[in-house]
């Protein structure tokens, strides 16, 4: 392999950023100073090439330090890691966080996604446009930042030797303008959870999320002790008998997954905690990680113990700086107290919704573009680095603690026959009290919305988007749907990620549908034709359909949407393409653009 670098040397700052992750270069071949021996030894081999998974951490370091990734910086990283620059360029340009053109150190990311739209994000953006010019340089529009309960939301970062990053929600025009003018640095605040019975969330607010002692005072690490008594088979038996279904979206039986990994003959086994939560309207995993981080780490430890995993990765969404810090702290403290006998590496996402898809997530950890892989083979056989891998969502894992301590029978006593336990729902949009709600599976949507205080006075319901952008719209008539996997399936909806975006009569459904279409167009990885081109055509045709005068949409355009939807659902590689038309199809029915039966 030829690593040809013709882009000129990196700056001292860029070098420092890269060396901060990789250590100092030892030879000319790595981009360091010339050493007499360099004339006689070649640089490369397995040891160097095996550093590929460090590419994303290195790119983050450059972005953090300088605010963008220049050609010199990228080529230096390539020489250090023995990665062809063309490949590395493909990686940099895949992730929204990395810029390949010079940017100011300060960056304001303003969410203009669904919940924030309902809270006036569009007005905020037009004010910023007015004051600072179009989005793209000093401020940028962003998909959902996972702060929908405090909408409208923004994320501010300042590149430099000590990179700073803070989530601001709710954000006001004044705060945004002050930040961009270099004024007061905003602070992040958590919202207290409303007082109501909670199970999974019981420690939130009660414990100090930075202290393992506080966690232990509230029952922390009882589950791990119990797991060790039960033994690996015992733990898997309990999880299986509890009939726990995955909370990441696909509702796969967790026990079956654990059993497959435990029995996989190939070694090593990896465990990956999927904390990339990027589904618009979803913030449950963020709350768990920010406010009960030790529970996530303990649950991962139990899962690794039960399935024989030698190494763990926790992939946290890039836009969750506080969650990442809390989790890192929890891992360090767990290590220091001897509660962690294997390595958990925290990986930082870089602005790509698709990396929540499990196989895209593996590629991302491996330092590649986050392109999903074709399945089969499934991760339990061929996963991260080609080895058997257990992937679970944060909420799924945290459920295991109670299963292990209370037993499968007690756990399954809550919820319905087919959907056991409780479920976290992220309420946002036009409800009185947006926030994270925990209710037994099978609770009706109506009851859930009432828990959140219902609609604001004098407003009527237009629709509820259940499951985020990959979910579908539910109507007023369907509010009595039981929120369980089987209950939602019966009406052709899905619980998905637990996002519940409530839209009253003030919401502009057309704008909402167009935003969803743009979301999929922006977030498609671009690998397969039905999704890469289909999401673009879907958006174009939807524009035509929605700008037609009421009821005047061409039937040929409606047919096009249906045709595209079917091909995306049938022929796309992964769940993104397969679900990219769901919300739009159901939304058009809601808008009476498409007949209810056809």
């Amino acid at each position, binding site marked *: *392999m030829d690593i040809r670098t013709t882009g000129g040397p990196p700056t001292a700052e860029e070098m420092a950023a890269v060396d901060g992750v990789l250590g100092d270069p030892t030879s000319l071949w790595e981009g360091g100073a010339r050493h007499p021996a360099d004339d006689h030894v070649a640089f490369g081999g397995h040891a160097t090439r095996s550093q590929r998974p460090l590419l994303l951490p290195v790119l983050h370091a450059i972005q953090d330090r300088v605010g963008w990734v220049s050609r010199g910086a990228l080529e230096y990283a390539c020489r250090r890691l023995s990665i062809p620059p063309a490949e590395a360029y493909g990686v940099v340009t895949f992730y929204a966080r990395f810029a390949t053109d010079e940017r100011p150190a300060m960056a304001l990311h303003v969410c203009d996604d669904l919940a924030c739209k309902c809270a006036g994000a569009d007005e905020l953006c037009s004010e910023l446009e007015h004051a600072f010019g179009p989005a793209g340089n000093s401020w940028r529009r962003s998909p959902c930042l996972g702060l929908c309960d405090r909408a409208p939301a923004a994320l501010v970062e300042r590149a430099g030797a000590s990179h700073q990053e803070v989530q601001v929600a709710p954000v006001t025009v004044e705060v945004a303008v002050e930040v961009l003018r270099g004024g007061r640095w905003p602070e992040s605040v958590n919202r207290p959870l409303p007082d109501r019975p909670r199970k999974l969330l019981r420690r939130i607010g009660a414990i100090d999320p930075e202290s393992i002692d506080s966690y232990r005072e509230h029952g922390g690490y009882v589950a791990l002790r119990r797991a060790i008594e039960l033994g690996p088979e015992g733990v898997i038996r309990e999880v299986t008998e509890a009939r726990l279904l995955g909370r990441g979206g696909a509702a796969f039986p967790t026990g079956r997954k654990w059993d497959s990994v435990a029995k996989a003959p190939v070694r090593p086994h990896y465990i990956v905690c999927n904390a990339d939560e990027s589904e618009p309207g979803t913030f449950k995993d963020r709350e768990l990680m920010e406010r009960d981080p030790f529970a996530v780490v303990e649950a991962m430890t139990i899962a690794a113990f039960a399935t024989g995993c030698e190494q763990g990765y926790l992939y946290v969404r890039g836009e969750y700086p506080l969650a990442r810090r809390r989790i890192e702290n929890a891992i360090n403290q767990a290590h220091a107290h001897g509660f962690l006998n294997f390595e958990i590496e925290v990986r930082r996402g870089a602005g790509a919704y698709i990396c929540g898809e499990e196989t895209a997530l593996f590629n991302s950890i491996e330092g590649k573009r986050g392109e999903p892989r074709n399945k089969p083979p499934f991760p339990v056989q061929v996963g991260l680095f080609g080895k058997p891998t257990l992937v679970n969502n944060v909420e799924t894992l945290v459920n295991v603690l109670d299963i292990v301590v209370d037993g499968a029978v007690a756990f399954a006593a809550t919820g319905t026959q087919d959907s056991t336990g409780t479920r976290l729902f992220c309420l946002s949009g036009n409800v009185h009290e947006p926030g994270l709600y925990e209710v037994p599976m099978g609770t009706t949507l109506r009851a859930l919305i009432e828990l959140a205080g219902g609609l604001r006075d004098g407003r009527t319901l237009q629709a509820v988007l259940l499951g985020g952008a990959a979910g579908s719209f539910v109507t007023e008539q369907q509010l009595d749907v039981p929120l369980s996997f089987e209950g939602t399936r019966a009406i052709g909806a899905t619980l998905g990620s637990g996002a519940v975006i409530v839209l009253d009569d003030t919401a502009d459904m057309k704008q909402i549908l167009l935003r969803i279409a743009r979301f999929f167009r922006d977030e498609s990885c671009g690998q397969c034709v039905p999704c890469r081109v289909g999401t673009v055509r879907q958006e*174009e045709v939807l524009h035509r359909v929605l700008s037609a005068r009421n009821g005047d949409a061409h039937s*040929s355009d409606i047919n096009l949407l249906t045709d595209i939807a079917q091909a995306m659902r049938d022929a796309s590689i992964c769940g993104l393409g397969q679900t990219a038309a769901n919300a739009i199809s159901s939304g058009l029915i809601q808008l009476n653009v498409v007949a209810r039966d056809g």
Partner: protein
Amino acid sequence: MWWRVMAEAVFVGLPKRFVKVSIDGQELDVLEGLTILDACRQLDIDTPTLCQLETLTPVNVCRVCVVEVEGSRVLVPACSRKVEAGMKIRTDSERVRHSRRLVLELLASSVDMSLCSAQVGGWMSRYGATPQRFGDSVATVAQPVKIDNDLYVRDYSRCILCYKCVEACGVDAQNTFAIGVAGRGFDSHISTEFTVPLPESACVYCGNCIGVCPTGALMFKSEHDMRQAGTWDESRQTVTETVCPYCGVGCMLELHVQDNSIVKVTSPLNNSVTAGHLCVKGRFGFQFVQRRKQE
């Protein structure tokens, strides 16, 4: 120690068996490890493919080869899915025809596919693809041709993003990694690092990317210039098979000749020496033949 090493059991893999599958109602035995596409070919069922090539690792991205497998929620790519015992496959169901049609329509509505093989045109008409139906003002990948060296040009307005050139430049053949897929979504495109011109990149002009490109996006400069001048005429071309005169490897060359001059060089895909791949000398080093003639 060598004798100890010799004594170690060598794992040669499990013996391959035949598995029974059914395709469109016809039962057949297929060697384990083969793909659904291989099985279809055993029955002479013409299956459209764009991103698949025998010499490259399947990437299964174009999705034009999808078939219906009983019990599978979604369609599966025939080119990469391995046969399993008892599989019931349908290659011409309404769902299959629909997805194949849409894939061809979506591609042709965004990419200039006019230089694809006649086979592709055949599939278009078989599935009734009418790319125009998305309207006139649709996003496309149209862009100027990249001409930055004397040997070959890159016209990415013809690129269907089949990944073949990247694979040929990478581990499947050349191991040079001069090009990769950059960007995301509809903005995904084939590129050198920071879109530098080829002479600044790692490219060694082996032309193996040209050899695998199914759309004419990558093209000999000689062919490009003749097409521009309107003199390219395949009906007047002959193909002469010969062996590369440069080194001892013995690569088989196919010299495409028009008006007594070499206009392009290829190598047969099924050649055991080259598998279709050459180096810069075999691919582009033919000028001396013509120079001598002129003198």
